[in-house]
């Protein structure tokens, strides 16, 4: 295993999802990992640590997840692309600094390998129960970007995309993996370095004394500088003005925080990444993400073989949610089927965008998500036969007809 100094391990490899994630990070130019080890995310850090010395990357195992993300934010301000890796309870501990990262507009990537919760839950068992937490977990108003990979290849690809978007929008980006994808060994094709698009950091290039750390460009994103360059800037997690000085007035809250939301909301079309399969003529569309979408895509294949008009909408980004496309599809389809490894999270977003125009069937499945193709197929079949449209979420239970 040898890559050049750019860190890109070009070639075809058999990698687990976690290993592919570490390779994606290195290829994206990530040169700092702050972590506190937790299963089932461990192999990301193991792989990164193993490869770090040869590409000049640094890592530290901090005392907890709170400090791990704090160190990542600090390292990001020195100009290093930085990330942290965690799972369930560790993600909860990171919420404080997720909010700080949003407020300080600090690019970084948080890889979260979801496990069963709440509390201590079932460590190492896969779940998709933290997707709402990634959106709403920290206090205050903000918008976030989150990817949901469904294969080892996507772990590689989406990690790079996550770094690119975090630099483009100056926001922490979450990679919401799960224990299935983390451990799954698959073929991963890594292109050569010149084939990989890397979003450069948006640096300020004016004179030193005119630098305002939070003066926004037209797209609401401010320019950054590294520390230690003589800019002598002031940055605070309090509500602040362009200078980064705390201003304790409601007007400043609007001035400061509204753009944090707008810089994502106004660019949803650029950020949202969805993959549609056979939705053109579909009567039922399965909306899924992460490892559930493996079963969903298989169900679509089987349904089409039977002549049923079933399509799939796979969310590569869960946040921001593709509101516009889902409500457009709601006009066309009889029903949406939403399989999730939780008790109903993204299905609420789907239902919100349906406006009562289509049925929404929720299919909860446990930690054996990929084996539940039959259930998804049965739910889709049932949905296609429904004659009336009901408001609200219809919970579909295994074996129900």
């Amino acid at each position, binding site marked *: 295993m040898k890559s050049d100094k750019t860190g890109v391990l070009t070639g075809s490899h058999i990698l687990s999802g976690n290993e592919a994630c570490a390779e994606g990070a290195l290829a994206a130019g990530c040169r700092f990992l702050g972590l506190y080890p937790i299963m089932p995310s461990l192999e990301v850090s193991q792989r990164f640590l193993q490869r770090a010395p040869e590409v000049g990357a640094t890592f530290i195992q901090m005392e907890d997840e709170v400090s791990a993300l704090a160190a990542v934010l600090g390292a990001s*301000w020195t100009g290093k692309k930085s990330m942290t890796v965690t799972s369930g309870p560790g993600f909860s501990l990171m919420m404080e600094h997720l909010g700080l990262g949003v407020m300080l507009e600090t690019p970084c990537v948080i890889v979260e390998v979801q496990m069963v919760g709440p509390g201590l839950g079932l460590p190492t068992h896969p779940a998709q129960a933290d997707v709402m937490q990634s959106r709403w977990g920290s206090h205050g108003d903000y918008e976030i970007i989150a990817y949901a990979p469904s294969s080892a290849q996507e772990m590689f690809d989406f990690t790079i995309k996550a770094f690119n978007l975090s630099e483009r929008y100056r926001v922490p980006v979450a990679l919401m993996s799960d224990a299935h994808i983390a451990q799954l060994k698959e073929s991963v094709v890594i292109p050569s370095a010149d084939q990989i698009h890397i979003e450069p950091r948006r640096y300020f290039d004016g004179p030193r004394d005119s630098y305002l750390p939070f003066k926004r460009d037209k797209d609401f994103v401010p320019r950054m500088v590294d520390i230690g360059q003589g800019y002598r800037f002031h940055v605070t997690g309090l509500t602040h003005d362009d200078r980064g000085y705390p201003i304790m007035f409601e007007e400043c809250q609007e001035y400061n925080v509204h753009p944090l939301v707008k810089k994502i909301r106004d660019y949803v079309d650029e950020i949202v990444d969805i993959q549609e399969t056979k939705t053109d003529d579909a009567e039922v569309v399965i909306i899924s993400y992460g490892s559930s979408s493996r079963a969903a895509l298989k169900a679509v294949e089987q349904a089409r073989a039977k002549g049923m008009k079933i399509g799939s909408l796979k969310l590569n980004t869960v946040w921001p949610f593709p509101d516009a496309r889902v409500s457009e599809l709601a006009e066309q389809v009889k029903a949406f089927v939403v399989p999730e490894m939780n008790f109903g999270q993204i299905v609420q977003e789907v239902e919100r965008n349906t406006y009562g125009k289509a049925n929404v069937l929720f299919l909860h499945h446990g930690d054996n998500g990929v084996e539940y193709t039959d259930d998804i197929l049965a739910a889709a079949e049932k949905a296609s036969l429904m004659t009336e449209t009901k408001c609200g979420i219809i919970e579909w239970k295994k074996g129900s007809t």
Partner: protein
Amino acid sequence: MNSIIEAINKGIEQSGLDRNKISIPSDIPFEPETVKSLGVDYFQVPRGRAIAFGSGLKLGNPELKIIPVVGDLMTLGGNHFVHGTRRNMELLVLCINSFVYHKVAGKSVPVVTEAFSPYSTFEEPFNFPHLGNSCGAVYTARWTALHTAELAKSIAEALHKRGMSMIEILAPGPSYYRYVTDLDSELLQFYFENSTVKNDEDPRNAAITADGKIIVGKFTDKERATFIDSYNIQHTKILGDAFTPHGSLPEKTGGGNG
């Protein structure tokens, strides 16, 4: 607080270091214009997280000198201090403790002000220099807001130490206590009457007690391999020439822009 900023300013000046290479992550809000006078990069982070944030700054750019400022007996983030010190991360931690001394039942005890607690307090304060020294800090000292010249000298010395240094500063917090009349001057008078300078005192004996004098001074000064030293030594031992010691990194990182 302003006298402490002034002492930090003087300390940096005496150290002769380039201010462009100094950064202060702080969990205490500084007056922005005062920070400007310090001429450093400044971050205000959540309560107790300055040491963790500062560790990232230091590792990201080992050329920098990082001065995390923490407050309020380090209740939040005490563990960051313990482990930052254990691994000897090269930081100068200024712990500004703003507990207010009050006279209760004829004794002077460290208490929170009546404005916060109608029944005063009954808890023992932390002996920070002792904690820092036990965890392996290379430099420990304690001063009050009165001892600005000594504090500045300590800061200048500690900025040249390799490893985790810590200085506890006893000071009133004016923005919290401004509604308590004359507390600042009362407190400074208290410091004047009740503190005694004992340099090189064993920090074990430096606990702040109800009836003893507050012992201030420079307590310990030693050498120990820093985190980055150990990181480089360990990786060089295992990887040999394949390892580039941290601090001299290759310039190009990441893929192309294809």
